[in-house]
């Protein structure tokens, strides 16, 4: 089916998120939608999926005018959306999740699990998903959960599939697998709209590229365009895709982790005798496939992990045994992996989010009184510095685009008096321009003599940003190598083979 948008306009208060957008997604094509953070991509997709009502413009499917008052209408019309935040129920099996939302229409009033299982197996086989219909969704890796979302969309026979930044949460391997799946879907004649900030993905799968900036379509690009051309179209200026940094001048080892082991609630070992040092003025990247202990390592550092033994030393002070507040007070900046869950309070304003970890100290608080004037000034400075696109400092975090949410977290953490910076996937969800900026910030932090620990799943980023790379596998550090180590070697290490 062909999807056509004509003059779609969507406003939030005084701000126009989509301004007369025209777009055609053809069957058998992957249509990439790219543009800066806050350009209006997600908004446009939400309009198509019936989550938002457009203030103007028309949606046509196969040249027929349609109107959606909710996602139900959109699904019935053959549109499927794979959300960045999955809408799955973890305690249900795959088959149960898949019938949810479809039960009355597709299977009659009785829950027909058997039929659902069959269809899951069917679709799974057709596209090589390898999804077990009886597995509990909560036990599945993120990449597989995403496939469940795709199956869900395909169950209702969606002909138009929307993917809003699906790869932001995936490991590089999972991403590659998703690319294969998308190509297969395209070859089946589906129309696919795919949003991503990653140029590599655009170049790999796009049949057509539309660039959006400030809510408007600013042009189309050829998939054959170079990465630099694409990048500058996306953000409207020249972008340096490499990290510019001078060679590290490491000083004393200020941050030392020795003999660190940790166990989860069930009692299995999640960190196994971790040892490393980070010197002042050095960036150490922890690389590895997600889920090999990186999360637990960062949690142990900031004092959130329960059972831990060993030693974590910053400036000669032991961190183990300290609570989160005590650790933060020693000057640790922490960018959590999951910004919406752990980094932001969605209902708070940008300004409030910027003082979230500082609500007990001057100059944000005097006595017990919040210093709202200071906060206003501070927040205004930060959103200008980090180029957070929002109506103002009073905008709620929930009203920001994904990338702009991430910028708020970064602005907060990088503006502390730092002695150590720990950042998990600091550039997740950011556009190429913002990535350049954040990388510069992180390098500047390093150059001011602060040890920096970055968790990265992308080898590109690990190699560009890191001075040294530590590869984790199953809770252990397989080895610590210089950042110019060949990809192949790193890849092997990530599979657990020590160099």
């Amino acid at each position, binding site marked *: 089916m062909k999807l056509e948008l004509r003059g779609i306009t969507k406003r*939030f208060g005084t701000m126009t998120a989509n301004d007369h957008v025209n777009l055609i997604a053809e069957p058998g094509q992957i249509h990439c939608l790219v543009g800066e953070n806050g350009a209006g991509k997600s908004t446009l997709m*939400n309009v198509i999926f019936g*989550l*938002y009502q457009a203030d103007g413009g028309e949606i046509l499917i196969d040249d027929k005018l349609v109107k959606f008052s909710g996602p139900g209408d959109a699904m019935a019309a053959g549109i499927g959306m794979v959300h960045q935040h999955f809408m799955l129920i973890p305690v249900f099996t795959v088959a149960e999740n898949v019938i949810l939302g479809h039960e009355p229409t597709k299977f009659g009033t009785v829950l027909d699990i058997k039929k659902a299982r069959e269809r899951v197996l069917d679709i799974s086989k057709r596209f090589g998903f390898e999804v077990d219909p009886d597995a509990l969704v909560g036990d599945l890796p993120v990449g597989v959960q995403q496939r469940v979302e795709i199956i869900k969309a395909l169950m209702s026979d969606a002909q138009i599939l929307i993917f809003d930044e699906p790869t932001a949460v995936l490991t590089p391997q999972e991403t590659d697998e998703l690319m294969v799946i998308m190509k297969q879907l395209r070859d089946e004649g589906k129309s696919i709209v795919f949003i991503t900030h990653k140029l590599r993905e655009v170049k790999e799968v796009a049949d057509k590229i539309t660039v959006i900036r400030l809510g408007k379509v600013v042009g189309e690009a050829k998939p054959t365009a170079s990465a630099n051309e694409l990048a500058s179209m996306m953000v409207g200026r020249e972008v340096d895709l490499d990290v510019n940094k001078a060679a590290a001048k490491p000083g004393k080892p200020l941050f030392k982790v020795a003999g660190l082991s940790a166990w989860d609630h069930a009692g299995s070992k999640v960190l196994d005798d971790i040892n490393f040092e980070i010197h002042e003025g050095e960036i150490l990247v922890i690389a590895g496939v997600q889920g090999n202990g990186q999360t637990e390592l960062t949690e142990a550092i*900031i004092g*959130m992990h329960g059972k831990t033994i060993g030693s974590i030393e910053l400036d000669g002070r032991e961190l183990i045994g300290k*609570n*989160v*507040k005590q*650790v*933060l*007070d020693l000057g640790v900046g*922490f960018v*959590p992996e999951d910004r919406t*869950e*752990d*980094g*932001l*309070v*969605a*209902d*708070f304003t940008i300004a*409030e989010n910027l*003082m*979230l*970890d500082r*609500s*007990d100290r001057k100059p*944000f*608080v005097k006595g*017990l*009184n*919040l210093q*709202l004037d200071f906060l206003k000034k501070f927040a205004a400075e930060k959103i200008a510095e980090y180029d957070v696109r929002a109506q103002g400092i009073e905008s*709620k975090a*929930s*009203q920001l685009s994904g990338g702009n949410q991430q910028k708020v977290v970064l602005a907060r953490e990088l503006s502390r008096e730092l002695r150590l910076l720990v950042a998990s996937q600091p550039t997740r969800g950011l556009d190429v321009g913002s990535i350049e900026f954040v990388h510069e910030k992180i390098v500047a932090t390093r150059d001011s003599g602060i040890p920096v620990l970055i968790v990265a799943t992308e080898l590109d980023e690990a190699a560009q940003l890191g001075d040294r790379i530590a590869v984790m596998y199953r809770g252990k550090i397989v080895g610590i190598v210089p950042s110019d180590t060949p990809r192949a070697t790193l890849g092997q290490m990530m599979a657990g083979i020590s160099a």
Partner: protein
Amino acid sequence: MKKAFREIVNGNIWLSFLAVVASFIVGGILIAFSSETVQTTATYLTARPTDFISAVWNAVFGAYDAMFRGAVFNYKADNLTFMIRPITETLAYATPIVMSGLGLAVAFKSGLFNIGAAGQIVFGAMFAGWVAIFVDLPGYIHFPIALLAGILGGALWGALAGFLKAATGANEVIVTIMFNYIAILLLGYLLKTPVLKAPGSVNPISPPVHDSAKYALLMGDQFRVHAGLIAMLIAVVFVWWLLNRSSIGFQFRALGHNPNAAKVAGINIGATTVLVMAVSGALSGLAGTSQIMGTEKFLTLGVAASFGFDAITVALLGRSNPWGVLMAGILFGGLRAGAVTMQANQGVPIDIVLVVQSMIVLFIAAPPLVRSMFRIKPQKEDAK
């Protein structure tokens, strides 16, 4: 459930207003149905519909008019005292409801569904009552000490529930409900022992509080309204400051909206939970002092009356906003004051007021219902 709860707590104050209007309409229909004249005229409705309509009008208007005269201003009375007494009665009833409602508002804003206002009022009243009744102190310090004892009593009882949640992960709803029973039963027991019972009395009732520990009457002894009203207004301003202008309140709200992010930002979840419940309980304790040292002046099992329940409704109706709670509390005070007159003058059963109150709960708990009744679109942001 937390999400639905958050939607109610942070919902639109406009919807609260409509919920009240809708409840009064339903109340009016019930009044009409239960009126005998309306029932009789209905039997010959087709013959003389005007009779029926005027009967309905008389029943509903009569009842609400009586309620107005009982709750706000009695324009039919023959002297000024009787004319203005209704509004002072309303304020007297409203005082403990607002205080306790403010306490719940603090908890609700912090994501804790404290259902334990009743128990916390009882504890406040017991502590304050014991000081006010059994301790002999000079006038100028007796009152403040009794007041502090009451606040402390409520705070302790609240904090204990908060501690159980923080330490064991117990659900605060269940803990606070159980704590209500414990508090009431403890009061009942103590009222049978010399700890609180009046010597020589056969009933579970305490001796009267000392004059030195009473809230001063504000308008002379013709009126019940007492200085608790001033304490209530101070409490409103205090809660507004706490929630909107203080660092502690900021942490409370962060906990309420996203405990994970609060934790990562270094806010101590356990300690904050205990503190929230202590502040929440303290305000209900204050309501207890208003009851024992202002209105009732004896400790009985009825000291918390239905205020614990009313406080929940008022906190929800006021969207946990201190000014909203103040207005909702005065409305509830008015319903109580007015109900008495309505029954006496018009023979409308007092239960109608309970129905109106319950309808309010229903309407605020079901925002989509009110929205569809008044054809209001949901807020756009909801979509995300």
